[in-house]
């Protein structure tokens, strides 16, 4: 049973110290996410969504609790090992795209491969393939400032999936896009989830978008208050 879970969270707590006061961002979150799942995490701001995303994305470590990713305990790994895991297993998509300024879509997509010592030619091939998968064929050599919002987010998705991760984490990926473009982006996630069996975890507060997910986890005040399955 445990081995089937891509992600297993056991009583995850996160406490920030801001000066003298302590902020309990997560107050004991336990959950399991199977490989190939499509999960939406929902909740108002301050509910701990982002903190949970950062922990699942191995950008941060929990203060307490266990986090198993593909059966491996990652909550105690050091910064460099976490960087390796982010590189190999996780792809990030952000609300503000977070592409490198003044660089081409292709260069942005190549970035994760540069940090895993993939040979130059193979890097190029994989990046072209990822870009065509998100519908940016022909736009590879455009600089990020020459791309529309939707195109920038597509490039970001290409970057997230280029290293063939088991998990894509998207934090409000449609937040800076109009409804129609947002819909197109969500369709890409759906395609990746169904076609390539990549697990997608989406943070959003838009009901409509969350409806597409197989499963919705509602957070409030650092705790899971409700789970829905499609």
């Amino acid at each position, binding site marked *: 049973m445990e081995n089937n879970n891509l992600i297993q969270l056991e009583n995850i707590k996160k406490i920030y110290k801001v000066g003298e006061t302590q902020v309990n961002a997560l107050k004991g979150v336990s959950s399991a996410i199977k490989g190939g799942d499509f999960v939406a995490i929902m909740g108002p701001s301050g509910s701990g969504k982002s903190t949970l995303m950062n922990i699942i994305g191995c*950008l941060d470590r929990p203060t307490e609790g266990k986090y198993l990713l593909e059966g491996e305990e990652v909550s105690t790994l050091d910064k460099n090992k976490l*960087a390796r895991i982010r590189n190999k297993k996780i792809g990030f998509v952000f609300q503000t795209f*977070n592409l490198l300024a003044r660089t081409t879509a292709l260069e942005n997509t190549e970035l*994760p491969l540069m*940090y*895993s*010592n993939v040979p130059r030619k193979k890097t190029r091939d994989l990046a072209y393939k990822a870009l065509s998968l998100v519908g940016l064929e022909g736009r590879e050599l455009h600089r990020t400032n020459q791309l529309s919002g939707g195109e920038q987010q597509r490039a970001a998705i290409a970057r997230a999936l280029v290293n063939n991760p088991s998990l894509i984490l998207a934090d409000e990926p449609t937040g800076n896009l109009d409804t129609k473009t947002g819909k197109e982006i969500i369709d890409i996630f759906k395609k990746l989830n169904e076609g390539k069996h990549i697990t997608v975890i989406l943070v959003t507060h838009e009901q409509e978008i969350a409806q597409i997910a197989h499963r919705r986890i509602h957070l409030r005040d650092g705790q899971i208050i409700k789970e829905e399955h499609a």
Partner: protein
Amino acid sequence: MNIMRTIRVALRALSRNKMRSFLTALGIIIGVGAVIAMVSIGQGAKSNVEKRFESMGTNLLFVHAGSRSFRGRHGGGGTYQNLTPNDAKAILERADAVEYVSPNVSTRAQVIYGNKNWNTSIQGAGENYTKIRNWRVEEGIFFDEQMVKSGQKVAVLGSEVSENLFEGADPIGQIIRIKKIPFSVIGVLETKGEAGGWHSRDDMIVIPYTTAQRRLVGRPDRVSSIDISAVSAAKTAEATEQIEEILRIQHKIAPGAEDDFHVRNMADVAESFAESTKTLTFLLGGIASVSLLVGGIGIMNIMLVSVTERIREIGIRMSVGARERDILFQFLAEAIVLSLLGGILGIILGIGGSRLIARIAGWQTLVSMGSIALAFLFAGSVGVFFGFYPARKASKLDPIEALRYE
């Protein structure tokens, strides 16, 4: 990331801010250029001195009157006129490590030929003067033992004097007047050239010392110094000892009393000059290094600005899997590439600068491979040293905060 990729990324980052990169590198360019140009002046002076001493002969010794130090103070040559032609004779006869001696009487005098007037140094010397000084007679002959003995009024001209008085005409057999006394010119010496801004060695006239004593100085019993050549360079120390022993006897100096003369050999003189040019090189190089240091601080400053500007980029790179050391190397590579490019341009500037100095100031300059390699290495170390702190700062950023940074 491997090294080639890191360098490529660094080059691209630098080319994005070409003007800024250039201005930052300018500190290094000027620093390296200044080090190379300044050191080339020192090294030029050094090689000049070496060449000069080499042409004089390394087995050369000088005896001057006056003790080496008198009451803690260096007594200059000729303080006491107590060397005699007999001293020279005694040295030649009794010191077996000595090959030639030449008693010298030096003075300055006005020299006239026709309507030409020239003030120059007059060197009274023995017949072996040219052999000791390793000096060739270009035209005519040098005076011989007989001419010295009889105190003939003959003169051998330094090439500059010949040039000034005769302007290319043949001086041999002509009569010149030294202090109104007529001398016939019998020879012209080869050009030795001037050395590092010192007085020209070709601006002088050699006459028999006996003539100089009687006609120009009026002290027939004294000489100002004695030039001596040892039988070989290896024998100079031995020759020095023998000369000192003989002169102590000649001058009746009691055991334990201080010498009233001093013997210097060319090796000592060369060494003391080498020492002073070395000091010059260090001084010039040291001053120039300060500008390289300032250039390094400029690099650190700009790298710190660059890190702050690119916090978001660092966050993005970290989120896709860059480790601390990837970020560290990326920024370090930028600093090193910047300073090495500055170093290369600085070397070019330094070589150009030293040529310019040579042309304008007329000094001999010498750019050695060693100083180029050293300057380049120094520039690289400046990059590492001043790039490390900003790079480390970048690598220690927290990815979450970096991603959130506006």
